[in-house]
Structures are given as structure tokens and as C-alpha cells.
């Protein structure tokens, strides 16, 4: 125990000294790297070295503004630091000339500034008041984009491992009570109260118990867990250790999907560093408590996110769900009592233990406490990661944080909860978000991916997309899911191809209900949700496909026809050249025509016409 306390003050001082140096920090999360962050880093190092500048170059993870990647932060001693967006290598020189050498922020490239108590610069939004962050809270994401995730010193200097320090001095049941008091519910989608789960595992009898962290994050369009793992890996480890101490486990496993190599790398590094400092392994902090964590890479199967399938996968089997009960709390990994929680759930625990359950419970709604991380993607201006208090409305997220729909188009739907969730329409934008309100609206909190769609998205096509997903990912163990999702998909394909009949809608609804009530695991039980919510809120689109053989959004190729407006076409011939099947004909300077028998409805001609003369309907 003394060990960490002694080093903590030194580490804190070193950290402060680091903040008091001129520094350039590059965002190197998966999104930053995908946007070219490594090249930017190289360019910066090059400039700094060749000019012999006295400035530290460091990296961090994603601050959440993925839309502004590659992002670079520059801070000078005693001044607010500025986060710049869209910094490609060709902008590096300008940035360094201006901010590092000239000591003046380059306002036109700046996204936000973080004052840290200093006087704000004029003309740059202050983070807490900026559009993207004003309605956010930064609790579990507080270190993201602020610290170096590969440095245990950065973690400790920002309050890290104070939670486990406090926990090992507490009674086990007091820790569990604190978690109960916080009201936190599982962030992996189900929303089961975490404190109660811990109590079950604590009470379960067994000579060996396990902690398992679910880092499978299979919902496409969701990357909260990836961001936390890449940006604050120690918080997840610390949360697991606290859980281990509270329930009496000495071993933890993180099941991380193989598609996240950077998260796996940073976790491995974090484990190594924690072991080196005596924060993990035997006799932690001299208390006699031992705990070790290992990482298990997944192999690409959505159903492995389901807790019992995940346990089978850790055991090296096919990842098929088990019949519950027995629940993992009693018979989990290797048939031993197992406490299984999601990444974000664990990452919240150190904060709850440090600040107390009541602090956490002060945020959120009556039945859903605290804050939740959401991923904002789709047809919006600001795509990225945000953390908001439970109870915020979908409209606030869309308009205030996400900056509204792109290109001035109209909002149509937001998809929440991944393949198990549903699509919510405009009428539901004032719905305060929590676990229960989303379920009553037919969707689900899920893990926190919000995909926004505009008027050019066809909702029947979206339902088809999700059913195609669940049908491929169904493990095949139970019939309702294996066969039922296939029949749902076939019907949707028929509808989008213009062969839908009047019985299709009632048939879809009936089959959906059967699957929901009879599938073995939640994958099957929730698979019909995308169909049911689109039928509930966008029934007119189904009817247009079936009765009028039209796709109102202009997506379903079989229902489209292309034609050229006589009064707009000037006969320039551009469309004629763009057509891959020679379906367009016409003399120069004369109105062109499309031969519907030849047209393959690829739409290649539409964007090529400068006169908006080609219409699809």
C-alpha cells in the first residue's frame, strides 16, 4: 500500500511538469490512425527535429471528435491548449510556424480549446461551451484524448488506481453496496443492475471464481468500448480488480474481438506495466489480495457477445449460447461462479468507488443512473463519441451534439441498439433516453451505437440489412432463430424486389412474435426488432413497396425507373458516356432518352448530369 502512495506524489509532480512544457499531442486512436494520424505524427517529429524546437511530442487516444480527425493538440506553458482538426501532413508546417514558433494559435484550423484555468484565446470555442461538448459530461471518458493511454504514470497522476487502493481497505460487502447505491446498470445492453450481479457472484459457493470482461463489441456502428479500451485501458483493469476483490476472484479474462488489434496491444501493455508496479499479480499493494488478468482474442462471431456464448468461446469451443439457468453467476467459466460485465461498466467502477455511489446516482433518471457513452454515426455533421447524462433526449443529441443532418437533408430515423434494436422516427426525438423508455419505444439501449439516417434511406432496405446480418450470425442452435430469421429476410427481399403481396405485412408481424417468444438466446429474441419498429413507425414505406411498387426513398433498384426530363436536358452527352450498358441514346444537342429495357438502374448517370435532368422515381 505504501508503495503506491509514495510514488503517487512523485508521479503527480512529473505529470504537472509535463503539462508545463510546450507540447504537441497527436490523436492516435483507431479513427485517428485511419484518418492518417501516423503520417501526421511523422511529419511533426520531422519538423520538430529539423528545426531543433524545444517541444515535447506525445500522443493520446480519441477525444471523441472523430469528424475532426486527424486531430492535433498544441499547448504552451501557462496557456490554454488548442485542439486542431483536419490536420493532414501538409498543414503541419503552418501549425508549427503559427502556434509553436509564433506562439499564437492558428484560429482558422482550431476546433476547440481546453483552458485548464488559463485565459481563453479569442475566437476559438472553449471545450465545455462548444456545440459538441456543451451537453456532454466527461466522466468515464475523462481521460480519452487527454492522457497517454500507454503510460501508467499518466493514469496514476489523474487519480488512477486510487479506487483499488480505497477498495482493498473496505469490507467486501461495502464495496458491493456502494455499487448498488450508484444504481449503475450493465452497459453491455441488457441493463442488469451491476451491484445485484456482484452480490449473486459474491454469494455463490465455489472454490474458484472468475471475472470476465466482455469486450466483444459486436454491434456494427458502435465503438464505445474500443475507445475506452484504447484510451483508458487501466480503468478497465482497475474496475475488474475491484470486482475481483469484492466477489473473491483472483483471475480475470478480457474477451476482446480480434478486429481491435490496437485495443489488444494497449491492454497487454497496461497489464505489463501494472504488474511491474506491483498493482497486479501476487499480493497487491501488500494486502495479500492477488489478481491476474489475461486477454483472449475473439474470432469474429456476433453471437459471442452473448455472455454464455462468450464463455464457450473462451473455453475454445464454438461460441454457441448455453441454456440459462444456470446463470454465469453460478456456473460460468469452466463451470465456476463468474462475474461478467461490459467494458464500460468496469471502466465506471473506479470512479464510483473513488467518488461514492451517491455521486454517480446524482446523474441520470430515476431508473437509469449515471452517464452513457454513445457513438454518433451515419448522415450527421459531427460523427464521433459522446458521453451524456441518462435522460437527455434523442433530439438534443441529434441537433446539439451531432450538429444535425448533413447537407441540410431531412432526418428520417435513428437506429439504436444495433441488430437487436430498432429505428425511431421524428416523433420520438423528444424521448428522454434511458433503458426503459427505449424498450417501450420498441428499440433498445444496446451498447450505445446511434446510426442516424436521412430521407434518402429506405427503411425496408434497412430492415433487410439487419435481418441479413442476424441471419448470417445466427449460430443455428435453435430453430426459431435459424429458420425464422431466414423467412423474415426472404419476405423482405421479396418486398424490396417488387414482389410483395398484401399478406406479407401480417405474416412478418406474426412470425416476428413467434421468434421473439421462442428463440433460445437474446440474439434470436431481439432479431425481429428492426422489422417490428420499421413496421410500427414506417408502415407507409412497406405499403408503398407492396401496393404501389415504389420505393419512396429511391433506393430499391428493382422499383426504380430512370428518365430524362425533356425541358432540362441540353444534349451534352455526359450521361451517355457514363452509362455502362449503353442504355442512353441521343444526338448531340438533342434531348437524350433512356431505354428502360437496357437500363440496369445503377444510377451512374444521375450525379454526372450537371442540369439535374435525370430523375429516378
Amino acid at each position, binding site marked *: 500500500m505504501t508503495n503506491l502512495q509514495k510514488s503517487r506524489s512523485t508521479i503527480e509532480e512529473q505529470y504537472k511538469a509535463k503539462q508545463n512544457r510546450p507540447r504537441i499531442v497527436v490523436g492516435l486512436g483507431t479513427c485517428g490512425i*485511419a484518418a492518417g494520424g501516423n503520417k501526421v505524427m511523422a511529419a511533426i517529429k520531422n519538423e520538430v527535429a529539423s528545426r531543433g524546437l524545444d517541444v515535447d511530442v506525445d500522443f493520446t487516444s480519441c477525444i471523441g471528435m472523430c469528424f475532426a480527425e486527424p486531430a492535433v493538440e498544441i499547448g504552451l506553458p501557462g496557456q490554454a491548449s488548442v485542439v486542431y482538426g483536419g490536420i493532414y501532413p501538409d498543414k503541419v508546417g503552418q501549425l508549427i510556424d503559427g502556434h509553436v514558433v509564433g506562439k499564437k494559435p492558428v484560429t482558422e484550423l482550431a476546433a476547440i480549446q481546453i483552458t485548464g484555468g488559463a485565459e481563453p484565446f479569442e475566437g476559438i470555442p472553449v471545450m465545455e461551451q462548444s456545440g459538441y461538448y456543451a451537453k456532454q459530461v466527461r466522466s468515464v471518458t475523462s481521460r480519452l484524448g487527454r492522457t497517454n493511454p500507454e503510460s501508467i504514470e499518466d493514469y496514476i497522476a489523474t487519480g488512477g488506481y486510487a479506487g483499488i487502493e480505497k477498495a482493498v481497505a473496505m469490507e467486501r460487502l461495502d464495496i458491493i453496496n456502494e455499487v448498488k447505491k450508484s444504481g449503475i446498470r450493465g452497459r453491455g445492453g441488457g441493463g442488469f443492475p451491476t451491484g445485484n450481479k456482484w452480490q449473486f457472484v459474491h454469494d455463490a459457493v465455489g472454490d474458484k471464481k472468475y471475472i470476465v470482461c466482455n469486450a466483444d463489441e*459486436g454491434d456494427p456502428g458502435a*465503438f464505445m468500448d474500443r475507445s475506452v479500451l484504447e484510451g483508458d485501458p487501466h480503468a478497465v483493469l482497475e474496475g475488474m480488480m475491484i470486482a475481483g476483490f469484492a466477489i473473491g476472484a483472483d483471475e480475470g479474462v478480457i474477451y476482446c474481438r480480434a478486429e481491435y488489434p490496437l485495443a489488444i496491444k494497449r491492454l497487454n501493455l497496461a497489464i505489463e506495466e501494472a504488474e511491474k508496479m506491483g498493482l497486479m499479480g501476487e499480493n497487491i499493494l501488500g494486502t495479500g489480495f492477488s489478481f491476474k488478468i489475461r486477454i483472449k482474442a475473439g474470432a469474429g462471431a456476433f453471437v459471442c457477445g452473448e455472455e454464455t456464448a462468450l464463455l464457450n468461446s473462451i473455453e475454445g469451443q464454438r461460441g454457441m449460447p448455453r441454456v440459462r439457468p444456470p446463470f454465469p453467476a453460478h456456473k460460468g467459466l469452466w463451470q465456476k461462479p463468474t462475474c461478467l460485465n461490459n467494458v464500460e461498466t468496469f471502466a465506471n467502477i473506479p470512479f464510483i468507488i473513488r467518488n461514492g455511489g451517491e455521486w454517480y446516482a446524482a446523474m441520470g433518471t430515476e431508473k437509469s443512473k449515471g452517464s452513457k457513452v454513445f457513438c454518433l*454515426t*451515419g448522415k450527421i455533421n459531427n460523427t464521433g463519441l459522446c458521453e451524456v447524462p441518462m435522460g437527455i433526449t434523442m433530439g438534443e443529441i441529434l441537433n446539439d451534439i451531432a450538429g444535425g443532418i448533413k447537407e441540410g437533408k431531412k432526418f428520417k430515423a435513428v437506429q439504436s441498439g444495433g441488430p437487436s434494436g430498432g429505428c425511431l422516427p421524428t416523433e420520438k426525438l423528444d424521448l428522454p433516453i434511458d433503458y426503459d423508455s427505449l424498450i417501450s419505444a420498441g428499440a433498445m439501449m444496446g451498447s450505445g451505437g446511434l446510426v442516424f439516417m436521412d430521407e434518402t434511406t429506405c427503411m425496408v432496405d434497412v430492415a433487410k440489412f439487419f435481418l441479413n446480418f442476424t441471419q448470417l450470425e445466427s449460430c443455428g442452435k435453435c430453430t426459431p432463430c435459424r429458420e425464422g430469421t431466414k423467412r423474415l429476410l426472404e419476405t423482405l427481399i421479396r418486398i424490396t424486389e417488387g414482389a410483395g403481396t398484401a399478406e406479407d405485412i401480417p405474416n412478418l408481424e406474426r412470425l416476428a412474435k413467434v421468434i421473439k417468444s421462442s428463440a433460445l438466446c437474446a440474439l434470436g429474441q431481439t432479431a425481429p426488432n428492426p422489422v417490428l419498429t420499421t413496421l410500427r413507425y414506417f408502415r407507409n414505406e412497406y405499403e408503398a413497396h407492396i401496393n404501389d411498387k415504389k420505393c419512396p426513398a429511391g433506393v430499391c433498384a428493382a422499383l426504380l425507373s430512370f428518365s430524362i426530363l425533356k425541358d432540362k436536358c441540353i444534349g451534352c452527352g455526359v450521361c451517355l458516356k457514363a452509362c455502362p450498358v449503353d442504355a442512353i441514346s441521343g444526338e448531340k444537342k438533342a434531348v437524350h432518352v433512356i431505354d428502360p429495357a437496357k437500363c440496369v438502374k445503377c444510377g451512374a448517370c444521375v450525379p454526372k448530369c450537371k442540369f439535374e435532368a435525370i430523375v429516378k422515381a
Partner: protein
Amino acid sequence: MQSGSTCQLTGECRLPDRATLPATLYKELEEFIAQLPTKEGHLVTVLHKAQSLFGYLPKEVQQFVADYMGVSLAKVYGVVSFYTFFTMVPKGKYPISICMGTACFVKGAEKVVEAFKEALGVEVGEVTQDGKFSIDCLRCVGACALAPILTVGEKVYAHVTPDQVKNIIAEY
């Protein structure tokens, strides 16, 4: 089971009958298996390693893994065929994987897939004749904010449009 124990007796790396893949890779795989603390529960880990060595998991590699892990070939095949990460056919030298997750789908990933199919003349899941490229769809790499996303080997491309497809192919 029998052949697995034979190997432990002789202490030699025993190749499957009619093995066609390099013995050095088998040797490396054998060493990897030997250093595992236990065999129980490590089948997926071993298959990850095997795929990273051979690039794919044909029957002979599965047989080798079955022998050395002391399980049946059927069990190995069951696991290999269950997980989408494992492939039983070789991929192209530059495997192109296009994300078809929700965010990428909404941003028009399907059109990107079409463009690749047209440019390379192969379907999803196939390899070009010269073995250079293969096209696959993947679920989500977690860079959804920069959709549509695709990867070529380890390299990630963000905000891809169908127009860029020819240039991306030309890079390799």
C-alpha cells in the same frame, strides 16, 4: 489422438500425410503449442496462430492442430467453420475487406463493394486470377465515424467513395 501422442513420444514434429505447406511453419506452430500452459481452452488461440503463419487453414493444417491439441479433426473443423475470422481458402496477397457494418452501410458501402467487384472482376469471397487481390466484407472495425471504411491488409482507408476504388487498386 493417436498421432498426437506419437509425436510427444518421439519428440519430433510430425507432419500430416501429404503435407504441402512449409515444414518450418509447422515447426513454429508446434513450438507455439508446446509453450502453452494448458491445451484446454486454447484451440481458438492456436488457430489464430496457425492462420497468421499459413495465411489460411486448409485441411492439412487443421489435421495438424487436431493431432497436437489432442482433439478430433471434427472438433477443429467445427470451430474453424464457426468463426468468420478463420478461412479455409487462401486470400489474395492484398486482401481487401470492405466494412458492411451499419454505419458504413448507411453511408453507401454497398456501392464501394460493387465498384471493387467491377474493377477486379471477382465476387465477394473470391481471389483474382493472379492471386493479388481478394474481396471480403467485414462487420465493423470500429472506425464508424469515418464511414465508409475498408482495409487492405493492415492499412485502413476512411471515407471511401466508389470513384477512389481504381486509385486504391493502383497503389498495389
